[in-house]
């Protein structure tokens, strides 16, 4: 460093400084911790498969909710279409796809409610009946709770849209909501496989 003594050392110039956006990191962290939460309930379900001491057993009372699953999974597509429309500035198209997403989610909840009604009143399976009831209602119920939370947030955005408060600059926010919704869908794939395929 012979030159250092003569001329002052000039620090390098930072050409550009780009960091990830806060919303994205935050929602990914939330999804990570929720994944850990769900995996414990899935582990409990798998651990207790076939360990119920009394009927009803899963293969006697469960049938795969195909329509529900199709509705929930396709709502992931419609929410992407909605966000894409908002990014392009088409607020009306956004509102339409957003409404479709909401209806699909609502159908899923209604389907779950119908399934539970049948299980409780027809098959006499409650959370305290046996281990199957315990693990089934807690796992599926936990997922349904997340669907409900997602639907409430979607409803809030829908009301804001109807009030004309939504514009292109909120595309990022709605996209973050859509990431949560995708997560809820992905969890359903795991729950469906565990409960209706492996566990039956």
């Amino acid at each position, binding site marked *: 460093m012979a030159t250092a003594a003569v001329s002052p050392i000039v620090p390098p110039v930072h050409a550009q400084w780009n960091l990830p956006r806060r919303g994205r990191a935050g929602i990914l962290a939330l999804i*990570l911790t929720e994944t850990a*939460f769900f995996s414990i309930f899935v582990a409990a379900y798998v651990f207790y498969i076939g360990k119920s001491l009394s009927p009803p057993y899963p293969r006697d009372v469960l049938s795969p909710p195909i329509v529900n699953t199709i509705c929930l999974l396709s709502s992931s597509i419609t929410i992407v279409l909605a966000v894409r429309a908002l990014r392009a500035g088409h607020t009306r198209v956004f509102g339409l796809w957003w409404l479709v997403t909401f209806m699909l989610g609502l159908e899923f909840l209604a389907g779950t409610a119908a399934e539970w009604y049948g299980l409780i009143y027809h098959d006499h399976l409650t959370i305290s009946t046996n281990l199957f009831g*315990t693990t089934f209602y*807690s796992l599926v119920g936990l997922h349904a709770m997340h669907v409900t939370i997602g639907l409430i947030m979607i409803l809030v955005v829908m009301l804001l849209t109807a009030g004309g408060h939504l514009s292109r600059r909120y595309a990022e926010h709605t996209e973050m909501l859509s990431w949560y919704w995708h997560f809820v869908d992905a969890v359903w794939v795991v729950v469906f496989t565990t409960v209706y395929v492996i566990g039956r």
Partner: protein
Amino acid sequence: MEQEIALSAREQAELPLLGRLHEWVVTVDHKRLGLMYIGGGLLFFVVAGLQAVMMRLQLAVPDNHLVPPQVFNRFLTMHGTAMVFLVGMPILTGYFNYLVPLMVGARDLAFPRLNSFGFWLWFFGALLLYFSYIGGDGLYGAGSAPDVGWFAYAPLTERAFSRGNSTDYWILSIFLTSVGSTATAVNIITTAFCMRCRGMTLGKMPVVVWLAVVVAFMMLLALPPLSAAQVMLLLDRFAGAHFFDTQAGGSALLWQHFFWIFGHPEVYILVIPVFGFASEIIPVFSRKVIFGYQVMVAASIAIAFISMGVWAHHMFAVGMTPAGNAFFATSTMLVAVPTGIKIFNWIGTIWGGKIRLRVPMLFSLAFLFQFMIAGLTGIMLAVAPFDWQLTDTYFVVAHFHYVLIGAIVFMIFAASYYWFPKATGRMLNERLGQVHFWLFLIGFHLTFDPLHFAGIHGMPRRIYTYQPGRGLEGLNLIASIGAVIQALAVLVFVINVVYSLAWGEEAGPDPWDAWTLEWSTASPPPEYNFAVEPEVYSRRPLWDLKHPDDPDWLYE
């Protein structure tokens, strides 16, 4: 603009007392929330510490009748639960709250309102635990505070065996404080990844911030299993579910797995932050750069990974398969490798340095020795047959108190002496600090060194008394005397804090001649932290500023 801010700061100072308190309640400032976390944690530290002293007094002599057995069970449950969830977690997240934005050159955490939400969730969750002393009776008149032990094994926690509501308070309190910690974890990760000042690449982040990120990831992954298990237990107790109900085919063992999947990483959630403090304090007081920055960070990440796969070493005694025992014994011993690397790096940092033996450094040196002994007894307990002999004895109690007090509490005190000037603008008194250090060191060793031997002699943990003539009297008496000395040391610390807040020496912005960004702003920092957003070129931005002719970035 700056003048306006300064004016409003002065106006705040002139508010009446009620108004100033209101400011603290509605604040979203990371520094105030951090201080409230630390203050709340210290409050519970005193309460839960006094409960420990009561237990030690009861055990001082055989066949003692000072504390009745039921009260003793409540004390040990409350002491354990409070020290983990109401003391360790909040104090360390409080430090992260305070330090992370300052160290990365940001003006606040990424989500300030989420931060405030997390704090109040923690605060009321914490109150709930101690409220059980008043409200735990429920409708049954059965017991007050929870008495099921801090890991609350099933099926003792089921309705049939734990009547009344004391266990419910335990469940809800831990659930709420965990959610609060999760909020902090999300905030720390987002802040570290998205809000670093210009020039601070990931490789230039201070070690404390790196370890904060590691701990935050561990919180995201390890706290949910506990929360999930608490939800299951609540369903068992209130909805008639059978998760841990052995009479309906449920498994008591499952609770142990879920609890320790959380419980073991939790130990590292508590100890990795203090690794960060040590990696900050030891270089500053040795006047050298941290030895092996990259290896230090990598070793911490390795510890975090391995710690996720060691949980069943808490369960050797339940009778797992030989393969299970072998796996968990091996993975547990594996932790010693990255931990050893860290200890060597700290020694490498001290080696050849110009050591300044101020109070933070004294605590750090004690930490080094005690943490190493704690690690060695940990390896002993990782040997499954040895663990069968010593599980649930005072040897285990002595081992984990060596980690929790010998490492964590010692480094929390070091960090308190180190960052107190930054947070308050005044130095903690050095002489009182020396008295505090030596009293605490002597008290700690008097208490926990003999307890190792009491455990090897066969003294089980969680008993309220023991019989004379079994070789335990002397060891227990010494341990109890040590506990009283530790309490005196903490009293000296409290006096020091109160005295120094009023009459302490003015600190100035950089009393230790340190190198990270928090020392570049005033003490205490203004609400906006930095008037001009800083720009950094190396891991020691303040070194570069103080030595423009020989900056660090030439060599990094």
